[in-house]
Structures are given as C-alpha cells and as structure tokens.
C-alpha cells in the first residue's frame, strides 16, 4: 500500500474492484488466514455442499417434492423403510424422505438468504443513518433499536408473522425484521468507531462532502463485521424458519418441502419412527453449524488483532 493511501486509511474504493482490495489489503490477508484454518475449511465445505444440494435439487432428488406416492404403504403406526427407489424410505404424508430433505435445503437457502438480505438492508439504512449522521437521528434510531432488542427475536418474528398472515413471504419478512435491530446496532457501532479515526478526520479536513465520507469511507470500512454477522445470521435464520414452522406460522403450502415442518410432522411418530425427526433435525443443525463455523473463522480472519 502506498504512503498516501495509508494516510487515508485502509483501501476503500467507491466501486467494487476486487483487485484493488485484494492487493495486500485486509481482505487479501483474511483470505490467506482463512485457507489455513481447518474450521473455516470444514464450514466452507458444509456450506458448499448445502449450496450444491439446494441449487441442483431436481438432479439429486429421486422424486418430486410434496407429491404423496400412490399406495405408499403409510399406516397410522408405521412408514415404509428404505427401498431401492427410496433410499431413506417415505415420510408420514407418503412422500419420499430424501426428496423432501433435498428440496428442504432449497427452501432453507431461499428463506435464509432473502430474509438475511432484507434484514441487512433494513439494518444498514438505520445503522448508517444513526452512525453516519449522529445527533438526534442517532438518539431516535437507537432508542427504537433498544426497544426492538428487548423483545426476543423469535417473538418479534412471531409478532410480525401474525400481522402479515400465513403467506410464504411473511416468514421471510418476519425473520428479516427480527434481524434489523442487530444489524443496525452493529453497523452504527462500527461506523462510530471509524468516525473518530485519523483517516476520517483527514478526509474531512480535505473538504470532502459528508455524504461521500459516509458512503465511500465509513461504510466500506465498516463492512467486515457486517459480513461476519450476515454469515452467522444465515444460521439463525435457518433455525428460526424451523421454529416458526413448529409454532404453526410457517408456509402452510404442503407442496413446498421444509425441514421445520418435516420435524413437526414427525412429532406424532416420535416413538415409532424417530428417524423422521432425526433426518431433518440433523440437516438443520449441520447447515447452521456450517454457516456458524465459517462465520466465526471469517471473524477471526478479519480481526486485525489476529494478523501476523
């Protein structure tokens, strides 16, 4: 990095330019540390596997989701076990268990990514307003965030889902709303920390407009913790989708395969066919673990204190 850019702080290009950021900067060294961390590799492997399954679900799954098989052989006391056409057997509505699991990955990915993106966007707007402008805007925004944080996120999601009614989008919005205060507080804190730093004072003294300072200097340099949080939030979102399903507020359309609802359906057969609950529960836990492992490793890699 050159002398000038050192005085102006870490590289913060206005346009996304991976080469400029990567040249010995924060992200480049973070990437190097990530590759050496076994937890990061394990997390990334789980996430990659999950993404592949979700994207290529139609190629992997042996059947169609949500379609009960004729003469499935499901009785009130038992479900058919593994057979050549159905490697994991059938689940209680008479659909192929593996198909449901594979398409469930797709649903989790969809809801997780959309809700995290929405929550991040909402939190970013509030956080940038509060942290970038300061003053009374900061006070008002942060009081609202405090109030929202005093409600447990699951209950916040439940309240929003109750207002929106049982539609597929309402689960995404409900989970997103529960994430907004977390992102808002994080981004504000991280921007406040930047605001007093030397390079920001330098940019100010050069006469750069406030909006430019916020958008091209404060925001890009506050993104590290936000990206970490977003990765960790994906894990929470996947668990919360299942919890909302369990509470009866999930997407009620039987043709969409969803891990949370599979768990709920398995509840009545817990004593006879525990595998119906074990498989979807295992998928939720492992996927969430993957995102958490990767997010934690990313946090360590981006932490300047950990740099050698």
């Amino acid at each position, binding site marked *: 990095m050159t002398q000038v850019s050192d005085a102006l702080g870490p590289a913060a290009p206005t346009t996304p330019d991976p080469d400029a950021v990567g040249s010995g900067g924060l992200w480049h060294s973070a990437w190097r540390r990530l590759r050496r961390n076994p937890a990061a590799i394990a997390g990334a492997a789980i996430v990659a596997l999950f993404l592949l399954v979700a994207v290529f679900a139609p190629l992997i799954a042996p059947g169609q989701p949500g379609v009960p098989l004729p003469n499935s052989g499901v009785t009130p006391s038992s479900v058919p076990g593994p057979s050549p056409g159905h490697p994991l057997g059938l689940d209680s509505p008479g659909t192929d268990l593996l198909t449901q699991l594979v398409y469930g990955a797709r649903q989790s990915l969809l809801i997780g990514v959309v809700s995290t993106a929405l929550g991040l966007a909402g939190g970013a707007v509030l956080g940038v307003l509060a942290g970038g402008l300061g003053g009374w805007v900061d006070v008002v925004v942060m009081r609202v965030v405090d*109030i929202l944080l*005093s409600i*447990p996120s699951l*209950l916040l999601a439940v309240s929003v889902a109750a*207002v929106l009614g049982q539609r597929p989008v309402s689960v995404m919005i409900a989970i997103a709303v529960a994430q907004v205060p977390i992102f808002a507080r994080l981004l504000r804190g991280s921007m406040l920390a930047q605001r007093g730093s030397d390079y920001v004072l330098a940019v100010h003294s050069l006469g750069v407009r406030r909006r430019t300072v916020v958008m091209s200097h404060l925001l890009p340099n506050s993104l590290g913790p936000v990206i970490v949080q977003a990765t960790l939030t994906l894990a929470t979102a996947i668990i919360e989708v299942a919890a909302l399903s*369990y509470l009866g507020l999930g997407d009620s359309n039987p043709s969409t395969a969803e891990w949370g609802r599979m768990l709920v359906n398995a509840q009545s057969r817990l*004593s006879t066919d525990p595998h119906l609950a074990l498989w979807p*529960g295992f998928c939720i836990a492992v996927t969430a673990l993957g995102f*958490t492992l990767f997010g934690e490793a990313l946090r360590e890699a981006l932490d300047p204190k950990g740099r050698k």
Partner: protein
Amino acid sequence: MLSFVVRRLLLLVPVLAGLVVLLFAWLRALPGDPARALLGQRATPASIAQVNAAYGFDQPLPVQFVTYVGKLLRGDLGSSSATGQPVLQSFLDRFPATIELALAALVFAVALGVPLGYAAARRAGGALDSLLVGGSLLGVTIPVFFLAYLLKIVFSQWLPLLPTSGRQDPRIDATHVTGFFVLDGLLTREWDASLDALVHLVLPGIALGTIPLAIIVRITRASVLEVLGEDHVRTARAKGLPRGLVSRRHVLRNALLPVVTTIGLQTGLLFSGAVLTESVFAINGIGSYLFQAISQLDYAVLQGFILFIALTYALVNLVVDLLYGVIDPRVRLS
C-alpha cells in the same frame, strides 16, 4: 446505590413507553379490525360491539391510546380470545413453572459452563479445548425443540430413567402453596414430592440450558484467556501465591464480569426457548400457554407476553448491573 437503582428504573420508562406505542400500533396493524383480532373465534356482532365499547375502538385514535395505556397501568392486559380468562391472571398462575424451568436451565448452564470454559482456557489449544470449542458451536446451532425431541426419544424409549413429560408425577398427592413445585415440597416437608419435581426438571432444563451453556463456555473461555495474559496475574504468580488462590482470586473473579453480563442477556433467550421446550415436555408454564396462543392467533396473550418479557428482561439486567458492584468493587454504581 439507591439513586442508581431509581435512575435505572426511570430510564426504563421511555423504553417501556416506546414498547407500548409499538404494541398499540401492532394491534391496529393486525389483519381485520382490532376487536375481531382480540376476540378471535369468540367474535359475534354483540361481542365485537362490546369490545369496541370496552376498549373504545369506536373512539378517535388518541383517545383509544389513552384508554389502552390506562388499562395497562391498572394491570389489565386484556383477556384471552380462546378462553376468555384475563391474561395477567393466567400469566401469574403459570409463571412459577416457567421460572422453575428457567432457573434449572440457568443452573445447568452456569454450573457446567463456567468450569468448562475455565478448563478450556487453561489448556488452550489442547484436545479438551478443541473439543469444548467444537461442542459449544454445535450447542449453539442445534434447534432447541430438536434437542428436546432427541432427549425425549432417548429417555422415553432407550433409557427410561428420567420423566419426559409434566412437572410432577400425578400419583403424588402434593400440596401446592407457592406454585414452585420443588419449593412447595420443601415447605410442606413432602420430600418425595420435591425430589420428584426436581427430577422432572432435569431433561427440560438440559434442553433449554444447552444454548446458554454453549454461550457461557465460550464467553468464560475468552474472558479467562484475556485475564491470564494480564500483568497482575503474572505478578501474583511471581510472588509465589498458591496456584488455587491465583485462579480463584485473580483470574476467575476478574474474568466473571463479562460472564455475568452474558447470563443477564440470556433472559430473553430462556423465555423464547421456554415456548418451545415447555410444549415438547408438556409443562404448563407461560411458554406452553404462548405456544397455544400462537397457534390460535390469540393476540391479547401474545401482546401481554411481549410486554411481560420486556419488563422481566429489563429488571434482570438491572440486577446484573447491581451484581457488578459485588463482583468488582472498582465498578461504582453512580
């Protein structure tokens, strides 16, 4: 000290006021008109008119808001649309069960989490440390109700050692004084009833306490690691103080501050976790009450629950701040 408590309680007022405004707006935003939302399945033209009159939903919005706040201040959280019972009374009846469960979970999490986190930090980088760090990650990512299912499957079928449902064996004819079954047994000297209630708490306590346990292990580990590297610990060792004394007085005591904060912040998690845990283990607390309320879209209960939890959360965190002064005399509460 007293002025600190009073000022903290006063600071609660704007947060709670904001919450009340938010909940009022939420009630108005529910699909359909608010009377119908509050009444749910009991809605008849006559009852709707009655609720409209009682809550003043036919009045202008500002008047409605004042009426609503007035009712809240008198402790009237409305009544359940499913049962018609006053929400506050139902909460108070069921609260002991939830507190008992939350305490069991907290005891499990703290009693196991602090020593484990400490042990991990003392052998940082070792096999035990890796195991605990990995285990705590798994502990945070396993869904509460899935863990509850797992425990229920294992202990009801393969290892029938512990009860998997209810708060007490119905065959025990216990006298209930306070609603806290373990305490009741002690008060009335019905030891077997007390023991039975305690045994019933084991599995739900583990299910609810696992996430806090994982978090406490991680926070304790990080905090102990930080304190271990500080100068005063090296000095204490250098002057030849016994190892145990250094651990207890110099390391653990200094490391506990962030841990105590974390424990306070778990309150919300314990309550929302109770909604899932209580319903799996058939415990008749406010969690399972809310579970039913959600499935019946019983808004008055949900609204009261949120207010109730926000207040409890704020009070618990006030107590946590007061505990700071006890743990660390340098923290002046002023």
